């Protein structure tokens, strides 16, 4: 005896929240681990002259594949982390938080990430 059910669509019931949450989680790790180190090195130690970084050497590193990894860990993922958090803060304050807020927050993160990755591709070398 067989009972044929219409095959449900593989997209049935799916929504984007898990995607935003996965980016938020990964971005949270980057925010906790990499962003403080970057802020310490480029925001404190270098300006104070405690460490010395050669710009030419830095550009060399950044134009390698490590520069793309840096962009991902310090700009792309933290931007989506912040977008998700700001969107949910809007929801908590009853100031939206629906699809318009999601579009603005995640859109901003996407634009920031796109500019950063585009800048990496534009680097010489």
């Amino acid at each position: 005896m067989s009972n044929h059910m219409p095959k449900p669509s593989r997209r049935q019931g799916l929504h984007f929240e898990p995607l935003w949450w996965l980016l938020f989680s990964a971005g949270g790790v980057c925010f906790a681990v990499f962003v403080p180190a970057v802020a310490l090195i480029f925001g404190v130690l270098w300006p104070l002259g405690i460490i010395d970084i050669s710009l030419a050497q830095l550009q060399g590193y950044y134009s390698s594949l490590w520069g793309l990894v840096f962009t991902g860990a310090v700009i792309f993922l933290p931007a989506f982390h912040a977008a998700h958090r700001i969107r949910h803060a809007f929801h908590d304050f009853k100031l939206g938080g629906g699809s318009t807020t999601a579009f603005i927050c995640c859109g901003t993160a996407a634009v920031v990430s796109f500019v950063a990755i585009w800048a990496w591709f534009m680097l010489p070398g």
Partner: protein
Amino acid sequence: MRSIQVLRYLPEESPQPFLQSFQVPVTDSTSVLDALNYIKESLDPTLSFRWSCRMAICGSCGVMVNGIPKLGCKDFLRNYPNDLIIEPLAHLPVERDLVVNMDSFLRHLEAVKPYLIEGKNAADSSQPNRQTPAQMARYQQFANCINCGLCYAACPQFGLNPEFTGPAAIALAHRYNLDSRDSGKAQRMAPLNSKNGVWSCTFVGFCSEVCPKGVDPAAAVNQGKVESAKSMLIQLFSGRAIGGAGQ
């Protein structure tokens, strides 16, 4: 003797709730529930509240004590040297005085099927279901829930959106999903995968702080997010989810 205030709601007398002060005798061992019982027996028999076991097992006597969800039997007047205000549990409709309507909580609980579902993981029905201590340890802490509803009164997301499945129901869904004897995960993932399932939680974590039985619903919800993300990815690529989302 000391003074405590109770939020009264008597719809046939006044459309608005109002605070009423009572003088109650106190010792070091007077619980909030003892004080309410003293009021009902000696001062005002019209006061309505739920209670049963007096020992944090039944989960009936949940109230807000100075704005924090507590079990009346497990919270003592000695913890409040100054003002003490007892109100009905937040985020649930009040029927009378401290009695709230738990229907929405029970509806969410029912939706996640919090019981063992037979299938490929169950033993032959003539045999007992065996389980090792390690298999039991995976879910045991989530099994301590007594359905008191304090976590729903603590959850700001449930306050904003009563359609949110909520902490206790998700913790119990997780408890059965982790049970080696259960085969019902596919049925439970559909409500958990929806926007009103695990995804309405923003990890405030107050549910786990107020739980009188030491359950950690916030952990269950966030482990549930990982499960839900996996379930939806598998559905997207294979067409067959762990959970068959959104039926």
